[in-house]
């Protein structure tokens, strides 16, 4: 062991970073950006789930529960009629509503158990959980005032069901994501290698048109991505039994579109990296923020306002929503929300294809 030799390696490494300011900036900047983003999402005072309170109670206790819920900070509760609540639930404007029955006060005063109806939208387990919690808390508060009210909830789900779990919720989004991210990374690195091994120079000195290069890449990686998509889909549906009430062909269509976006985003962004090392840096810069903002983990509706705007600009947000609409809600092409999601992803695919082809041309001049 020679101290000098070891230190020579250490010094050389640090020197390399001095010449690669970008990596340095990333090393010290990215963690702060990611943590700040996470902090903002979680503590930035975003929207809480909207819930309805349908109070049919003829006595005073129902109103008491309703006002407790309305003053709750964890949900945004408002009183409404049953028809209104149902309509809003179907439109996706409510995460759920609680039904306080007509004989609520009556039964409570006779020390009978009260049966509450809770209707949940069901797509997002996190929101459903918050609502159940808020209802529970409202009754704990009631119990301390009115003394010993026993209650039971009868929960029904618009989508999914009681055994709809977190995997069902995340699974839908991740099926699309896995393909997107892996294809993105593989394309970026492959394209950079083309640059660093000098073969891109050869391609540019051939009659190949830039769009031909981009399309060739796109086809090649799309074939890989589609095989991967089939594998991921089969594994998720057949072995993991991830909930799916939609058309498998539609899921595949959306995955294919995402793969095309990923390939072209990879080609486009590889123009901004000199080395494979720098390409890997796109993971924290491009992928992590998208993971946080596209609604995969944290529902977009619960983000702070400004971040919601940002989320709506990211194609992944639409892909994730579309994927969940298909798999969880059983959406088909007649749904306008799914049409929008597909249109946005398709539009973005076209945008990155053009961006990839034009940057390729500019870089060479």
């Amino acid at each position, binding site marked *: 062991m020679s101290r000098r030799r070891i230190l020579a390696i250490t010094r050389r490494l640090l020197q390399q970073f001095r010449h690669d300011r970008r990596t340095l900036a990333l090393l010290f900047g990215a963690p702060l950006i990611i943590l700040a983003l996470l902090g903002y999402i979680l503590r930035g005072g975003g929207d809480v789930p909207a819930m309805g309170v349908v109070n049919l109670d003829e006595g005073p206790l129902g109103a008491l529960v309703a006002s407790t819920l309305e003053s709750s900070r964890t949900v945004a509760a408002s009183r409404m009629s049953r028809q209104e609540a149902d309509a809003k639930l179907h439109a996706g404007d409510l995460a759920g509503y609680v039904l306080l029955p007509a004989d609520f006060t009556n039964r409570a005063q006779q020390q009978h158990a009260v049966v509450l109806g809770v209707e949940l939208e069901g797509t997002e387990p996190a929101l459903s959980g918050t609502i159940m919690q808020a209802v529970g808390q409202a009754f704990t508060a009631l119990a301390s005032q009115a003394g010993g009210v026993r209650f039971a909830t009868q929960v029904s789900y618009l989508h999914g069901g009681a055994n709809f779990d977190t995997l069902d919720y995340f699974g839908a989004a991740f099926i699309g994501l896995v393909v997107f991210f892996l294809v993105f990374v593989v394309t970026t690195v492959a394209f950079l290698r083309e640059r660093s*091994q*000098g*073969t891109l*120079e*050869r*391609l*540019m*000195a*051939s*009659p*190949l*048109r830039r769009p031909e290069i981009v399309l060739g890449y796109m086809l090649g990686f799309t074939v890989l991505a589609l095989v991967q998509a089939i594998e991921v889909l089969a594994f998720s549906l057949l072995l993991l039994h991830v909930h799916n009430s939609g058309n498998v062909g539609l899921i595949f269509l959306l995955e294919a579109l995402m793969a095309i976006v990923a390939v072209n985003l990879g080609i486009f962004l590889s123009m901004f990296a000199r080395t494979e090392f720098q390409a890997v840096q796109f993971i924290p810069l491009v992928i992590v923020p998208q993971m946080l903002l596209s609604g995969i983990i944290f529902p977009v509706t619960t983000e702070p306002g400004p971040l919601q705007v940002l989320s709506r600009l990211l194609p992944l947000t639409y892909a994730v929503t579309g994927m969940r609409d298909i798999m969880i809600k059983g959406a088909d092409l007649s749904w306008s929300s799914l049409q929008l999601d597909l249109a946005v992803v398709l539009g973005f695919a076209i945008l990155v294809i053009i961006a990839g082809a034009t940057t390729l041309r500019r870089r*060479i*001049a």
Partner: protein
Amino acid sequence: MASEDFAVEVDGVVKRFGSLHALAGVSLRIRQGEVYGLLGPNGAGKTTLIRSLVGLVKPEEGSVTVLNRRMPNLDVLAHVGYMTQQAALYPDLTVEENLRFFAAINGVHGGIREALEVVGLWDRRGSIVSSLSGGMRTRCSLACALVHKPELLLLDEPTVGVDPLLRMQLWDRFQKMAREGTTILVSSHVMDEAERCDRLGLIRFGRLLAEGTVAQLQARAGVNRLEDAFLKLSEASAA
């Protein structure tokens, strides 16, 4: 048309990289079927000049005409073979797969065996490129530039690392191809190779210092060896 005879016409080409003049007004013409040698020290601008012929470098001033087509022009590139200074190959493909690819993007199917036989790599066609020796990689890269039988061959130091025997064979081959009508532009530092060119251009600091046959250059410098002529002409223009 008088220009019919020229495969390459470079007219007052200027290319800067920042404040550095990689090409400071180069003009030259290469006749069809000629072997033209580009000589010059490191950083003289040889590679930059060759890259400007295939449109990889966009000149700030001047014009480049290749096979009677004003560059940049993608279609004409199907008739140009460009061998880059560093062997540019797909390291995880076999020799033959590399050739097939470069043939296909230039719109031809055959010619693979012939190209590989020229560089003596037919026996190694199944080898993965990354497992080849350095000189073999250079030869494979040369084969990729030949495979579509181009009318104009641009060779950027094609024989670096190639053993003497094969180097001699390659030059025989270049001269034969030239006799059959192929125009060859080759950059080199090696003087004995330069002697096998029909005409030479001496380039330094992005300028063409002198041009002519070996005999002409020697006569101009008043010396017998090409090497001396080169040194003398370089000094004369630097002064």
